[in-house]
Each structure stands twice: as C-alpha cells, then as structure tokens.
C-alpha cells in the first residue's frame, strides 16, 4: 500500500518536473530576448532606417514591410477562409467530397513553409510575373495562412446554436438570409479572433518570403505592391547570420527579435483577451 503511494508520488513529481522544465525553457527564452533586446530599443531604433551598412540606425523599413505584407496576407486569407468555412459548416453535407476538402485543409496546414516559398516562386514570381514583391510574398503567406483561417472560422461557426438558424428559417428566411442575419453576426467576433491568431503566425514566417520579395537592405520604403521590401523576420535572419560583422550588430539583432516577438505575441494576446471577453459577454 505504501509502495503504491510512493510510486504515485514519484510519478506525479516526474510529470510536474516535465511541466516546470517546459515553462523554464519558455521563460528563459523570453527573459533573454527581453533583457538583451530591451537595451537596443529606442525611439530612433523604431522610427529610423538602418545606417552605415546596417551597423547603426533602426528597423523602421522592416516594421513597415512586415506590416504591409501582413495586410496583403489578411486580404487574401481572411475572406477566403471565412467563405470556405461557411461552405463547410453551413452548406456542405456529409459526403466524400466534403471529407476530401477537410483532408486537404488539414494537409495544407502541414505543408512545410519553405515548400510554400517554392510554390510562391513558381506561381507568383514566375508564372504570374508579379516578380519578387510585396504582392508575391503576401499572397504566398496568404496561402500558408488559409488552412488556419478556415479552421478558426469553422470553429467559430460551430459555436452558433442551431436554434438561431432554425428561428430564421421558421420565419420564412432563405438559407443565405439566415446565415447573413443570424449566424454571421454571432460568429463574427470568434472568426476575427481566430483569424488574427493565424495572421500573427504568418507575420513571423521567414522561409516563404525569402525568395518571393523580402530584401536584404533597402534604404527607402516600398512605394507600391510591386516593390521589394524589408521584413522583420528576414532582417533578424540577416543580422544573425549574414551580416559582415555579426558580433557588432548583435544588440541590433536582439532588438529586432524583441520587436518581432512583441508584435507576434501582442497580436496573439489581443486575440486571446478579445476571445475571453466575448466568451464572458455571451455567457452573461
């Protein structure tokens, strides 16, 4: 009897150790970036372009580039993802085709990001002749994000009680009217928070944009969708591995990493807080 208790105690202790280990790694990562990156952050760093072979100055073009490319990503991935989810959750019947669609979506979310990059190089840069540009990179990231936005939108649509749909239909509304007036308003906040999470992940991706539009260094801001751009994740990669004097620019690399993490996690956090609030409001 006592032995059994000791084994249980030790077992649970081991499990708890696993948890503490993972949390410690996470905190250590965040602490290192936060403490060493914090020193590099200044007003100039955030608002000025790099100077003197990127050994001085800031990362403003990279912040703007990431912002612009993320907008293109969202324009492609959010509506398409939402429409696909509406089809899957509201219209599709249990059929072989529906199963194949779902299988494709799950498989798309497992395709390596560098493969999306290759796909973007062929389709957007070469076949459609968009060149290496914000447009090509944004569309590539959009395709990468699509499976996430579909899944997130569908999850949100699933939370709409069936009585909402039936109520509208019973009053003589058509299917589309019931979706537009009863289902979408209820699901929209959930769809938005879910898609923000997907977009945030896309904003931190490097491999898909390396060959579709991100530039090593540009002294000016992109003027149109056809221009190349600097992006935060790619800039971090350059500063960490490709720069001619890596140890000299290390503080700047840390600063870039901190800004990138703050951006991605900030978007995450905003979405999670929004979700939490909306959930509570619905309950009340």
């Amino acid at each position, binding site marked *: 009897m006592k032995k*059994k*208790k000791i084994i*249980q105690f030790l*077992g*649970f202790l081991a*499990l*708890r150790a*696993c*948890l503490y280990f*993972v*949390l410690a790694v*996470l905190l*250590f*990562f965040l602490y290192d970036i936060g403490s060493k990156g914090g020193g590099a952050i200044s007003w100039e760093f955030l608002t000025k372009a790099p100077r003197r072979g990127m050994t001085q100055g800031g990362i403003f073009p990279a912040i703007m580039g990431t912002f612009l490319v993320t907008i293109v990503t969202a324009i492609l991935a959010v509506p*398409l993802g939402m*429409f*696909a989810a*509406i*089809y*899957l959750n*509201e*219209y599709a019947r249990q059929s072989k085709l529906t199963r194949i669609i779902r299988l*494709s*979506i799950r*498989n*798309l979310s*497992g*395709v*390596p*990001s*560098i*493969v*999306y*990059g*290759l*796909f973007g190089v*062929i389709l957007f840069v070469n076949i459609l002749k968009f060149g290496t540009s914000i447009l090509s990179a944004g569309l590539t990231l959009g*395709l990468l994000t*699509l*499976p996430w936005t579909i899944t997130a939108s569908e999850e949100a649509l699933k939370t709409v009680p069936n009585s909402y749909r039936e109520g509208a239909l019973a009053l003589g509304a*058509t*299917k*589309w009217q019931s979706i537009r007036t009863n289902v979408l308003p209820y699901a929209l906040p959930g769809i938005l928070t879910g898609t923000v999470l997907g977009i945030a992940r896309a904003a*931190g991706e*490097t*491999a898909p944009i390396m*060959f579709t539009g991100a530039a090593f260094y540009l002294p000016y801001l992109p003027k149109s969708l056809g221009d190349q751009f600097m992006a935060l*994740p*790619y800039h*971090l*990669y350059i500063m*960490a*591995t490709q720069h001619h004097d890596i140890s000299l620019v290390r503080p700047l690399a*840390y600063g870039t*990493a901190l800004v*990138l*993490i703050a951006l*991605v*996690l900030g978007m*995450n956090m905003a979405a999670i807080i929004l979700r939490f609030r909306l959930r509570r409001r619905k309950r009340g």
Partner: protein
Amino acid sequence: MIKKKRNWIRLRESAIRAFFFLNGIMAIFVLIGIFGLLLYTSIPAFREVNIKDFFAGRNWDPTSPLKAEYGILSMMVSTFMVTACALAIAVPVGVGVAAYLSDVAHWRVREIVKPAIEVLAGIPSVVIGFLGIVLLGPLISKIFNTSSGLNALNGCLLLATMALPTIISISEDSLNAVPQAYSEASLALGASRWQTLVRVRIPAALSGIIASVMLGMGRAIGETMTVLMATGNARAFPHGLLDSIRTMTANIAIELGEVPYFTTHYYALFAIGLVLFLMTFLVNLIADIILHKYQEREL
C-alpha cells in the same frame, strides 16, 4: 409576379451556394496546385540527374567545375537525424506535461499553463533559430568542447521545443477524451491514480498521442529557419550529433537565393522540395487516419 420573385430568390440562393462551394473546394486546388507545380518544375532536373543518384548519392555539389553531383542522401539523413533526436526529447516531455495537465493539475494551473504553451507555439521560428545561435550554441561548445556550437544537437534541442506545443495540446485533448468510466472502473478496483494514468488512460488515449507525435514530426521535418541558423550547414554526411549538418530545408533556403533560374541546379532544388512535400504529406496523412479512426470509435 410572386412566382417571378420566388424564382429570382431561388436563383440567388443557388448562386450564393455555388459561390461558397467554390471557396470550399479551393483547398483541394491549392494542395493539388502545390504538388502539380512542384512536380512540373522538378521533372527537368531528372533529364540530367539519374533518379537513383539523386536519392542514393551522398554528394551534393551542383556547382563543381569538374562534375556536378546531385545526391541528397546526406541531407535526408541529416533531416531524419535531427527529427528523430528532437522527438526523442519532445515525446516523453510533451506527453508528461499533457498527462500532468489532464490528470494532476488543478484547473487554475491549467488556465495559466495553456496560454503559456500557446505563447511557446507562437514564437517565430527565426527567433528560435536566433536563440540557438546566441544561447544554445555557446553552451554546447563549452560543454562538449567543440569549436562551434552550431551542430545537429543544437538543431535537435530547438526542434524539440518547437514540436512540444503540438504534442502537448493534442495529447492532452485525447487524454481528456478518454471516457470517465474507464478511470472510475480502474479506481474502483483499487488502482492508484498513477496506475490508472499509466495503465488505463494513456493506453486508451494512445492513438491520439501517436497522432500528435506524427504531427510534431511533420513540423520538425519541414522546419527551415531554425535548422538553417543553428546546425552549421556543412554538406558532409553526418556521423553524430556533434557534426555540423545541412538538412533538406536548409539546403533549399541557402541555394535558392543564389542559383540562376531554370538551370538543372534550380530544378533540382524544386525536386528536393517535392520530396519534402511528399514526406510531410505522408506523415500528416498517417496522423490524420489515426485521429480519424479514433474519433469514429469515440462516437
């Protein structure tokens, strides 16, 4: 008049339905499109490169002035090596955390830990790679007395942290889906909670846990930036975890920027991409089949 209006409404409804349908089947087209374009762009490579040499050749040296070689065996072995090593760490730790969260932890702990795991999943891979260079690299070179800390071990440890969130969240879901009656029966027979966890609940949730491992594996195989930055990228055939290695993903990332378009070298890089696509497709498909079966059984 009324009939006309009704007809119009019906037409509009079917047009709307068709519109959503087109968006719905988009995913299939994207998947087929990726496969088709990769295949189409890879084929020219095999006009010059023997398929057997491609898969079994150890040397990748497309720019050699004497004889260009296109063997990807060393890269494939490197990819498998870091993936296997990462899973060897991430699976026990990840399943351990999942079991702790589902069976031991107070719900308040769970409320705090789950967002933390999401944060870990949200750190961009380029940042993880950066940490491999600045944190893990110096540590490894000090401990093992190697000249550089950028090697397979570094990539393996980083990939493990990246596979963890997937493994934890899906394993925990499948542990939570084990019917309450299983544990109640086990506890009623006098088993301790630990025995119930190890001998009843984990076996019952095994299919979900295996699926989570497969998904984590797919992620590790396809991960680019982390291994590109942290593993050193030497082209030699790897012999141990302290060797500098170059994975398939890293090789594409390094060479695609420099290669002239529409040369054999260019096509060969897409062929590597195709192999990667097929490998991850297979791994994900297996995970999917396992999860699907398991869901059907639950219903």
